[in-house]
């Protein structure tokens, strides 16, 4: 186990002792708050993916791959009540901590599915939650979420076909009529017909074109198309993030809230920009197909980045709602928990015009980290486990 920054170099170099924070100040424009962050990761890979563990000490921790050894490792914030981020080897986690049954199952599933990106993690988490190991509510929510994923995929495919039908004017029917048919049983045959005509338009073999249409709709599934109502998990997450920012700003809870709202705001702005770029790319489908290999790779990369960027924010939304459930009696412990887990935008992933206030945030995070293990017994606090399971159930259904 090492205790250090989430950056690879520090995590290995500072094993067993706490590294001194290396403050780096960044300049910015007038609208941008000055930033410098301690131990801030450089890339999403370094930041890792949030793992929906229910063991309190591991709640909201992150998993990533050590690029040198190719082994997985877990980043745990405030494990000792100190200020460091602890880095545990993935396989040795059970020798350090007692995990809940759910977490042991999740660990096995993540290893098997190599679920270290947010999208894979989401699927792995739902599969494990469906066993009921995180409670019946989480199991039911995971089932709903899996159905929603399937529904999102179907809607995205239909939306893409409608675009192509409009584009090619391929079928001898009115658009409305076609819309209905796309949703009906003949959907498969329409894909064949459409891809044939679209293949001529793009001068590609029709089989290849069909495969690519399906690949594109698969790639767009998590985001959906811009003009589709309630489309895509990532767009819905972004909406929640916007609501969160507005809610935190309106609550006016002081410096901590200000920093949380700023971080949410910067993340939302970055996500909006990224989504705007994807939407623009995908608008001209013939051009997209014309340079397929490059474009699909870029799309997948952009989608991954977007998922990384928004990773962890639903947990923050849930904690915020719980903290503010009674507005007359704000639960400041949960606010502190938010500050512990709030997903910082990695330095290397920040756009040049966006440098978030991480200096203060980082300082505050150092002060708020709390021990979650029962300090007298070292036993798992199952009340906290229940609370985390409830969060898990609520965030699954988006």
């Amino acid at each position: 186990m090492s205790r250090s920054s989430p950056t690879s170099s520090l995590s290995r170099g500072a094993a067993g002792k706490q590294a001194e924070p290396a403050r780096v100040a960044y300049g910015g424009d007038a609208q941008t708050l000055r930033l410098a962050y301690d131990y801030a990761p450089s890339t999403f890979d370094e930041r890792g993916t949030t793992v929906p563990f229910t063991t309190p000490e591991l709640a909201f921790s992150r998993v990533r791959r050590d690029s040198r050894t190719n082994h997985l490792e877990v980043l745990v914030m405030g494990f000792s009540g100190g200020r460091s981020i602890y880095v545990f080897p993935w396989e040795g986690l059970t020798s350090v901590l007692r995990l809940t049954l759910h977490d042991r199952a999740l660990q096995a599933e993540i290893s098997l599915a190599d679920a270290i990106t947010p999208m894979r993690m989401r699927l792995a988490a739902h599969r494990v939650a469906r066993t009921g190991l995180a409670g019946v509510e989480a199991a039911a929510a995971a089932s709903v979420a899996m159905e929603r994923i399937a529904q999102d995929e179907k809607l995205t495919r239909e939306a893409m076909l409608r675009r192509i039908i409009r584009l090619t004017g391929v079928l001898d029917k009115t658009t409305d009529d076609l819309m209905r048919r796309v949703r009906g049983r003949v959907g498969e045959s329409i894909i064949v017909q459409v891809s044939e005509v679209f293949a001529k338009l793009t001068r590609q073999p029709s089989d290849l074109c069909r495969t690519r249409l399906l690949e594109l709709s698969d790639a767009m599934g998590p985001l959906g198309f811009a003009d589709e109502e309630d489309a895509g998990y990532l767009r819905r997450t972004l909406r929640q993030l916007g609501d969160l920012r507005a809610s935190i700003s309106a609550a006016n809870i002081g410096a901590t809230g200000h920093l949380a709202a700023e971080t949410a705001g910067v993340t939302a702005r970055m996500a909006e920009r990224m989504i705007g770029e994807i939407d623009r790319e995908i608008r001209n489908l013939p051009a997209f197909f014309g340079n397929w290999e490059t474009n699909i790779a870029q799309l997948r990369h952009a989608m991954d980045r977007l998922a990384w960027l928004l990773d962890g924010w639903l947990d923050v939304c849930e904690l915020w709602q719980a903290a503010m459930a009674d507005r007359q009696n704000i639960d400041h412990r949960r606010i502190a928990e938010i500050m512990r887990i709030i997903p910082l935008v990695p330095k290397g992933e920040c756009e040049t015009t966006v440098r978030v206030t991480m200096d203060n945030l980082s300082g505050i995070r150092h002060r708020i980290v709390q021990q979650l293990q029962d300090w007298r017994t070292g036993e798992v606090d199952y009340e906290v486990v229940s609370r985390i399971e409830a969060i898990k159930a609520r965030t699954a259904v988006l």
Partner: protein
Amino acid sequence: MQLPERQELDQLSEEKIKMVYALADKMPDGQLRGQLKDQIRHRLKKIRPLRRLTASRLFCLPFESLLSNDALRVRTFGSIPRNCVGPLWSLVKEELPDHGAIDRIDASNQMLMPQPCPMMEHRQLLASFADAVSRIRSNLSSDRGMPARLAAMHRDLPDVMEEVHAIYQMRDEILTAKRQIMASEQLIGIGDDYARSVMALARQASAGRGDQRWYKLFFLVLLMDEDLADHSGALIEALAEKSARGAGASIASEVCELMVAREGEALKAGFAAALTTPADLNAAADQVRASAESLGVMRLASPHLNRQIGESIDQMEGRIHEFLGGQFAKAASASVASFTGGPGESLPTMDEIKALGQTILAVAKVQAAIHHIYDPPADLKELAKTAIESVGARLDRIAAARVAGTMRQKQDALAVAVQVARSIEPISNEETVLEMLEDCAVQLGFAESSDPAQFFLKIIHAMNTTHE
């Protein structure tokens, strides 16, 4: 009018209790109102519903944490009987030059905000209350007949008046200390140094009084405040160190003694409550945990305190041990037995599993709470052991009855086994609970593996199969 029984009220949800409280607040008969509130006060402490702002509540705000329901005992320093508030408030009202402001407050229909930063209008009122209390206190020392007149209204009123006066005089410093402690939680400015700052505020507030009681009251108001409960350890520690360095009479000892007495009262009330449902068991476990933590904090400071404090803590912990080995273990056993004694082959309902889970959680809570003090009582230990065995036996019966069943029946049984295993997890070690689950799964034909990771993967596959 007949008031509902406490047991009936205990069955109500938090939302309903809030409604009952709002209705009680509007009852015209003061005595009935008080009785009804007393019945639900133990739950109000936890639920903390919004309260209507009245002038009398505003008056009580500075010393609210010292209010005590126990009117039978001989009053201890720093404990203000709730039934003393009525006569106290009527005395203060007589001294107020203008009733317009308090009438406006009563008619405002606002809610009492719990923030430690009163509104400007309220600050002015608090200042006028302070003046009124000051005048009464001054009369008390100059008018020889007045103590007797006050005592006729309430036997503790003269002493209470002294303490309320002291608190009112120190209210700004107390509020500042409270704000600083809370700010330390919100991470603004004060950070971990709040204990030192609070000590300085206490010295400032009580300076020149020639009376250590003011100093003690300052800390009692803060230490008894439930909002600040998490910080009491640091405060007591700071106070104890200061007392030790001063080598004089230990103020910390006296403050702790009062707090131990308070814990005793709370425990007495908690132990008297019925333990008929898992929710009751959890409430009792919460009470035990809170008391054990509070006593633990004082024990940490005990090297700096009088020996008597240590003895009082020992006594209290002895009572907790007795309660857990007796009433608590018995009620928890009965609750577990109602699950394990269910019809052998039928699947337990989700409500039954939930009840089992709550009971086990209560047992785990108390085990964790007393772990640092002593071994769990034998009956409680035995309960934990037999619970695991008997729950495992019921799962075996359920699985055995479905060996030849359909895949759907087996999946349902496995789903139940997973939930039951989760319920038992808090008092079981990993291997035991895993074995229990694996035995059941193997009987149902789902999985067999010497590697826990492989076993879990098989379970995940089995529970996802129908959906894939």
